[in-house]
């Protein structure tokens, strides 16, 4: 046992103390945050050209101009755009969760973009254009750039339309802008004018415009969860969004931890083989001790990575007082299923590393393994949506996929049958033992084999060598 620990300690320190490791592990979140900050900065820098000037409204009644003065207020434009963006973000999360990416809302419209990030200062001017000359004069002012736009509203447009009127029957108004007018600006002006006209129509129909707006606004739900042990938990909007993210975050943590450490394990095994230190080691330890030591050492590396990342995440949750969303048992499960996933993948990586002489040969053997491992990644929306569905349940008992599927299901909202938890854990660890056993057989033969890389079939044959 002490030899296994000696090997494990060397593997751990030699991996963790490498500059490249420190840079990669600590650097990844830094780079990630950096990219986000840079992106925000770039977006900020990518300011829309300011939309400043006068819009002349030709409307005999003068009502549209009055309404437009309200609708073109800079503060109103901005707050409406923000509201819209928030609603879209929520819909997006809903879409991701249900896996129904087709129904996802598109990016914010050009008009909203402009409203959010550009400077908008529009003065409304009432104008009349009873004859061609007057209209020509207004158009001339557009050419001279003293007017941004001229809007001509036909009086019939302001009558409340018939409820069953079709799109074709809907009336149009004319908007004149200069040849080189920014299309985003035009789109914003159209959006605000549309609202102004609706406002006038509402008034004429005898309603308070603000009331109409309030009536058509859909309310948002205030979800309360009835707890199993009694009582009710309030849930804020932030809670709802995060609750859906947590299972995915947990799965990604396991995924990143397992992959980076198992990759290191394979690389170090290949290195020992290719620099021929293997035989020196085998004169001191048995192949099993060597493999076990390596697996333990790199498991420690993975745990270190997972704890660094998860403490960053937990710290963020605590900072924004969202930590109540995480059940302490979830953290226990995180460790249990991390170790299960790690031992499964690490034993396979150790076997592959022992059997080949360089990384290129390893890739051909690792690829089929990767295929199996991609499955839970691809299925995660399905599993979150139906944690007790057929696919989710099956995945929980398939080696390699099981730990990923289980952590998703356990962290998801819907509780899963209690019996499945111990059964999946016990079954998973039985699989771990079987895989470590098989890997040790391959490892023993593989470490002293040089030359042509073995096929997966040959690897299985090696397991049967006494």
């Amino acid at each position, binding site marked *: 046992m002490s030899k296994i620990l000696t090997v494990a300690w060397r593997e751990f320190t030699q991996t963790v103390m490498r500059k490249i490791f420190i840079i990669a592990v600590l650097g990844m979140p830094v780079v990630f945050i950096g990219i986000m900050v840079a992106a925000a900065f770039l977006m900020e820098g990518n300011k829309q050209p300011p939309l400043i000037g006068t819009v002349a409204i030709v409307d005999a009644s003068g009502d549209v101009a009055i309404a437009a003065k309200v609708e073109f207020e800079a503060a109103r434009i901005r707050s409406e755009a923000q509201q819209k963006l928030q609603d879209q973000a929520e819909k997006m999360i809903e879409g991701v969760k249900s896996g129904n990416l087709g129904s996802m809302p598109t990016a914010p419209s050009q008009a909203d973009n402009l409203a959010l990030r550009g400077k908008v200062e529009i003065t409304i001017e009432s104008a009349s254009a009873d004859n061609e000359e007057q209209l020509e004069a207004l158009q001339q002012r557009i050419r001279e750039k003293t007017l941004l736009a001229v809007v001509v509203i036909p009086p019939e447009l302001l009558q409340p339309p018939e409820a069953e009127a079709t799109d074709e029957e809907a009336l149009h108004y004319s908007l004149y802008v200069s040849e080189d007018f920014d299309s985003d600006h035009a789109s914003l002006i159209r959006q605000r004018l549309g609202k102004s006209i609706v406002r006038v129509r509402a008034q004429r129909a005898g309603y308070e415009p603000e009331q109409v707006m309030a009536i058509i606004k859909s309310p948002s739900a205030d979800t309360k969860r009835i707890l199993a042990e009694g009582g009710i938990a309030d849930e804020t909007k932030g809670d709802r969004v995060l609750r859906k993210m947590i299972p995915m975050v947990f799965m990604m943590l396991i995924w990143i931890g397992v992959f980076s450490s198992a990759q290191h394990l394979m690389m170090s095994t290949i290195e020992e083989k290719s*620099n021929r230190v293997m*035989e020196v080691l085998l004169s001191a330890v048995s192949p099993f001790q060597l493999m076990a030591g390596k697996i333990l050492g790199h498991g420690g590396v993975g745990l270190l990575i997972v704890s660094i990342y998860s403490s960053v995440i937990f710290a963020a949750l605590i900072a924004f007082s969202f930590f109540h969303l995480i059940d302490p048992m979830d953290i226990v499960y995180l460790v249990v299923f991390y170790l299960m996933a790690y031992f499964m993948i690490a034993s396979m990586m150790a076997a592959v590393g022992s059997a080949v002489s360089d990384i290129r040969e390893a890739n051909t053997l690792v690829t089929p393994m990767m295929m199996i491992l991609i499955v839970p990644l691809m299925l995660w929306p399905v599993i979150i949506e139906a944690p007790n569905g057929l696919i989710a349940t099956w995945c929980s008992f398939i080696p390699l996929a099981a730990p990923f599927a289980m952590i998703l299901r356990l962290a998801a909202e819907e509780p899963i049958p209690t019996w499945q938890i111990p059964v999946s854990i016990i079954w998973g660890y039985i699989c771990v033992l079987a895989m470590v056993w098989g890997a040790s057989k391959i490892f023993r033969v593989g470490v002293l084999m040089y030359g042509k890389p073995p096929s997966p079939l040959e690897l299985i044959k090696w397991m049967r060598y006494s």
Partner: protein
Amino acid sequence: MTEYAIRIKKVNKRFGSTHAVRDLDLDVPTGSLCGFLGPNGAGKSTTIRMIMSIIYPDSGSIDVLGSSAMNNKDRIGYLPEERGIYRKMKVGDFLVYLAKLKGVSGPNLRNQVAEWLERIDLPEVINKKCEELSKGMQQKVQFLAAIIHDPDLIILDEPFSGLDPVNAELINHLVREMNEAGKTIIFSTHILHQAELLCDRIFLINKGVKLLDATLDEINEKFNPRTLLVEPLNGQANFTDIQGVIGMRPMPDSAAFEIELQEQADPQQVMQQILQSGPMRSVALRRLTLDEVFIQQVKVGGGDEAAALAREELSHV
């Protein structure tokens, strides 16, 4: 301590169609310094790996230090033919790591490593990375890695290959010193004079078959063909009258004569009489070198073809 450090009985090992080791019997007495000789591909490394329990024989039994190498790894030092180091690891860390794997513990380990490095003339490398060392220096570090835990049995696979004469002598000295301290040492080589200088016991193998297993004295005794080499100063002489001499014949391409002695004759006496008979440039007892024994044995064991191969092998040395 048992009488024999290693006992190999009827061991066979095949790799596919190659019969690498065939019905091998070998006993290595405790405390001996044993040379393990044979041309390349003779089965030396295979046998050593089986002794080390790195690979296992198909049949037969191997007893190392009373049980098997598996149970005695900490008491065995092994320098494999394929030497490896961790290129990125510091020399000191590497040696400490291997010593720990060999069961050495204690707070002084690093100091011991430093002392050892001084003994092999590498005092300044302890904090250098292994890859910064020259090949010869790496070789010495690897040798140190094999003996750092003060093992009872030391197995060295081609310990001198790639070393310059000064460092070869250094290793030579250390090996002898360890043997005097009671350690059993086996080293394989195909450089025969190396073995002749160092060993008290020779074990010769070719094509997986043991050809010779004897002490150096026994070999001298057995392969002494009782011949003198005499070169008279004037080039003319007749020694057939001297008692004990059976006959003489001139050596080709030289002025010397080969003189054959009777079975019971004392070579020293005959040599004295020859010296008295006239001025001599040289008088010597002609003994077979290990090279000749080797070639002769390979010939006996494997026919002319094998002997030719062996001869070619030696000519490269």
